[in-house]
């Protein structure tokens, strides 16, 4: 590295001394001797200048004080010098002004960058609302030379001033700190951090010091800050020497150069940066704790809210002053799952951990690691945490306490991991946590025209836990530089997810999402979106609409976490276009891409032939086998009705011979029991067998409370399928629900498309969801003599999103028929 020439000094011996100090620093890395030596030298320059220019004019009534960093004797090689000239009241004479000017000039001539202010004692003891930095700088005042009596007067008046203004000064300090943190997006994990100003930097250490001076906080953490302070001092000292100016940006070049220095025991910049983040994290957390402790003192409303939050306490935890404490921390040893309940509490209520709770976790970390490495499947708990509204907050707490790496061992590979990339601003772990925050922020963007579309996608997915887990893993392979990171991440996820106890189907989806997390962003910039081949390629790669939605959300969150401006409106538009062309292609395939198995057994081949390819993509091998066996066991003209309960909802599977009005009758039969259909799919094979699946919820808990109702329902549906019970009669008894309020109503919309498929008409319906809607809609088609070939029904909150492929006598619907269907369909939509 090139080190600039040593600080020059017009005073005898200055240059030599500075050169020696620098050489010593580069050998030992000990910044404290540099700070001490430079402060002493600057003291001598300032005192000499005072003696030469001010002493002859001011026999009394003038004192020179070092303030700020200079007052604390923390002068880095190129730090500014802050000096306060304390003067007696009264207008200065012309001679005095001239002397002062010569004094300042001589210091500037010594190549010191001096900032000075001239104040009386009274002015020093006034609150400067617009310039509290002045008041704060006085907390570090140090007498250099001049009128000692004047300085004693200031010292005598300072306690009274501080006593009266302590809280206000602290509030200003907190406000300035919050503004400074916000400039750095409230994170320490910048790839090229400013070690003075960024969160966790030297300014935060000063904040701790000032709040202690103002007696707002205790000094209990002093010892813990010693190591970070020495490390940051050493870094800053080096940066100053290296660039020959007051430069505090630890950029990539500086990271490489500093790692080559003998005083740092690291061989690789990524290791020295991990050390930096470790210290910065300790400083940042201490600063945040002190900030919150001060902020909580000044608002009775806020205090009231905090008191109210104490009611959140439960049998495991207690909340005191917005901090979560274990009720019985010793239980951590016997009941390690207490940590997971803690994360769930944080994810639900967004309360910070108390320092004591963090300490307790740290103490038990070895045992907790051992437990989490054991055979206990953690996914049910983890899934619950990930589904909570503040899951990212809980994950951050797990990350900060080292628990996340205990639960997901490969997480340790990306902790504070730096990947040098022009676009990325954060370390890999921070980037990952931001992706999950982005997902949680989405629902609030519902009304934003660009982001709202993605918010709607999020509300369409059943659970966000799997996407969040995929996001947690998506870059975890970056710690392993030997292979493509998407593949490495998938490999690590595959190895760990089985142990977590994730079902085979979810594992498949998880691995798919991780491996393909870059394909949509790749298509956005690298593929011709107007080329039909792009849509086909994407559809074949992604395979189902469900996966497309998950992948689109993941891409949205991933791009948005690269840096604060990465997800520009332009990119959102491009991502939406990619989503749209793939969505269209997957919808088209529903009808036009049929299964034509070649290597299956003849009976299975007969069963599968003609189902849409979607059937194979959404069902596991076991499910397909089960359907096949159910069909095999069915009498030639019989029906199989199967109802199972899973994840709080019911799934109805029906296999029967196709007949007119069948799908509508099934929808009606389910609705007649007061059930609310959430999803439905209907496929038919070329042998005339239909496979209809319905996912429904039981809002009145009829089936839960009366198990015998399930048998009655199964029996009724079977009779309906076989045409032995008239569904209209069943529906006549169904209770009418209250219509939703006008404000929340969704106006029904119908779209016909004769272009998408080669053999059928696509009808898309968007309507307010209600029990019986699907029956009313499908009955319109059936009564008009149409055949429903494929159905895909979904619900998003209160919105039903239905896709039907309809034919009449084997052909697309003619235009006049479409027009005659519109009015009754709309009537069905609007109840």
């Amino acid at each position, binding site marked *: 590295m090139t080190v600039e020439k040593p600080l020059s000094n017009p005073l005898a011996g200055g240059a030599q001394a500075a050169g020696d100090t620098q050489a010593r620093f580069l050998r030992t890395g000990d910044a404290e001797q540099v700070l001490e030596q430079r402060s002493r030298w600057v003291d001598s320059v300032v005192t000499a200048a005072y003696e030469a220019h001010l002493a002859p004019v001011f026999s009394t009534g003038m004192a020179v004080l070092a303030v700020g960093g200079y007052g604390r004797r923390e002068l880095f090689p190129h730090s500014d010098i802050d000096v306060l000239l304390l003067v007696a009241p009264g207008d200065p004479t012309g001679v005095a002004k001239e002397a002062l000017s010569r004094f300042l000039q001589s210091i500037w001539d010594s190549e010191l960058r001096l900032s000075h202010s001239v104040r009386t004692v009274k002015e020093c003891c006034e609150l400067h609302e617009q310039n509290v930095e002045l008041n704060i700088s006085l907390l570090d005042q140090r007498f250099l030379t001049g009128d000692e009596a004047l300085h004693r007067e200031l010292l005598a008046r300072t306690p009274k001033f501080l006593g009266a203004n302590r809280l206000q000064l602290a509030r200003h300090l907190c406000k300035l700190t919050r503004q400074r943190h916000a400039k750095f997006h409230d994170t320490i994990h910048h790839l090229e951090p400013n070690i003075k100003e960024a969160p966790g930097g030297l300014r935060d250490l000063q904040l701790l010091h000032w709040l202690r001076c103002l007696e707002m906080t205790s000094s209990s953490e002093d010892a813990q800050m010693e190591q970070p302070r020495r490390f940051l001092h050493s870094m800053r000292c080096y940066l100053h020497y290296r660039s020959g100016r007051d430069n505090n940006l630890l950029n990539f070049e500086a990271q490489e150069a500093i790692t080559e220095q003998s005083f740092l025991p690291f061989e690789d910049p990524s290791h020295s940066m991990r050390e930096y983040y470790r210290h910065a994290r300790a400083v940042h957390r201490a600063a945040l704790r002190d900030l919150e402790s001060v902020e909580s003192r000044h608002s009775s409303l806020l205090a009231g809210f905090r008191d109210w939050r104490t009611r959140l306490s439960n049998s495991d935890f207690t909340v005191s002053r917005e901090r979560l404490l274990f009720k019985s921390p010793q239980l951590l040893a016997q009941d390690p799952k207490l940590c997971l309940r803690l994360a769930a509490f944080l994810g639900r209520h967004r309360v910070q951990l108390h320092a004591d709770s963090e300490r307790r976790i740290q103490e038990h970390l070895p045992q907790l690691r051992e437990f989490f490495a054991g055979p206990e499947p953690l996914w049910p708990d983890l899934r619950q945490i990930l589904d909570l509204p503040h899951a990212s907050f809980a994950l951050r707490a797990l990350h900060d306490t080292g628990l996340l790496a205990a639960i997901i061992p490969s997480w340790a590979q990306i902790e504070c991991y730096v990947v040098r990339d022009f676009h990325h601003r954060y370390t890999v772990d921070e980037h990952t946590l931001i992706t999950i925050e982005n997902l949680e922020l989405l629902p609030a963007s519902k009304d934003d025209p660009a982001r709202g579309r993605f918010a709607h996608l999020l509300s369409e997915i059943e659970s966000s836990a799997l996407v969040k887990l995929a996001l947690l893993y998506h870059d975890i392979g970056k710690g392993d530089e030997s292979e493509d990171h998407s593949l490495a991440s998938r490999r690590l996820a595959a190895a760990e997810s089985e142990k977590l106890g994730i079902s085979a189907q979810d594992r498949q989806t998880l691995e798919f999402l991780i491996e393909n997390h870059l394909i949509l962003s790749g298509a956005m*910039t*690298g593929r*011709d979106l107007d080329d039909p081949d792009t849509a086909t390629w994407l559809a074949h790669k992604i395979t189902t609409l469900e996966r497309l939605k998950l992948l689109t959300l993941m891409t949205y969150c991933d791009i948005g976490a690269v840096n604060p401006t990465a997800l520009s409106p*332009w990119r959102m*538009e491009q991502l939406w276009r990619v989503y*749209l062309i793939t969505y269209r292609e997957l919808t088209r395939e529903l009808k036009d891409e049929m299964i034509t198995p070649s290597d299956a057994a003849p009976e299975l081949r007969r069963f599968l032939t003609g189902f849409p390819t979607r059937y194979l993509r959404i069902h596991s091998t076991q499910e397909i086998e089960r359907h096949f066996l159910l069909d095999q066991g069915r009498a030639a003209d019989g029906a199989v009705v199967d109802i199972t309960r899973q994840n709080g909802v019911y799934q109805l599977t029906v296999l029967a011979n196709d007949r007119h009005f069948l799908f509508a009758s099934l929808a009606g039969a389910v609705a007649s029991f007061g059930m609310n259909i959430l999803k439905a799919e209907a496929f038919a094979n070329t042998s005339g067998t239909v496979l209809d699946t319905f996912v429904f919820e039981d809002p009145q808990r009829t089936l839960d409370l009366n198990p015998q109702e399930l048998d009655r329902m199964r029996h009724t549906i079977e009779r309906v399928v076989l045409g032995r019970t008239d569904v209209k009669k069943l529906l006549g008894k169904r209770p009418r629900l209250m219509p939703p309020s006008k404000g929340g109503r969704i106006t029904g*919309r119908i779209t016909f498309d004769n272009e998408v498929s080669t053999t059928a008409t696509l009808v*898309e319906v968007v309507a307010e969801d209600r029990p019986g809607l699907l029956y009313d809609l499908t009955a319109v088609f059936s009564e008009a003599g149409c055949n429903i070939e494929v159905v895909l029904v979904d619900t998003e909150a209160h919105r039903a999103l239905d896709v039907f492929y309809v034919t009449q006598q084997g052909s697309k619907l003619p235009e006049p028929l479409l027009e005659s269907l519109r009015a009754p369909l709309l009537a069905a939509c609007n109840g």
Partner: protein
Amino acid sequence: MKKIEAIIQPFKLEEVKEALKAIGIDGMTVTEVRGHGRQKGHKEVYRGQEYMVDLLPKVKLELVVPSSRLEEVIKTLTAAARTGKIGDGKLFLYDVAEAVRIRNDDRGEAAL
């Protein structure tokens, strides 16, 4: 010296950059823009709702080249950005009076 402003399809950016690099043109400014020429917009329907997509995402490249290399650069750029379909984009050419490198005050073609 000439300034070339090229509006191209986003997916052609990498290809264009590579082609220019191959003939020794490294410096350029890239902006993500939206717009349309004769291609106009089109209507898209998603879940029954119609969206007018009138401004399509494009990429704008700006580069300044010595006049002597202009034709070569135009040829390379158009060949790399072309798909032959509507929407491939356009080039606009301007005369540049002077160029100054801020770091060391180099002027004219030496600053490129």
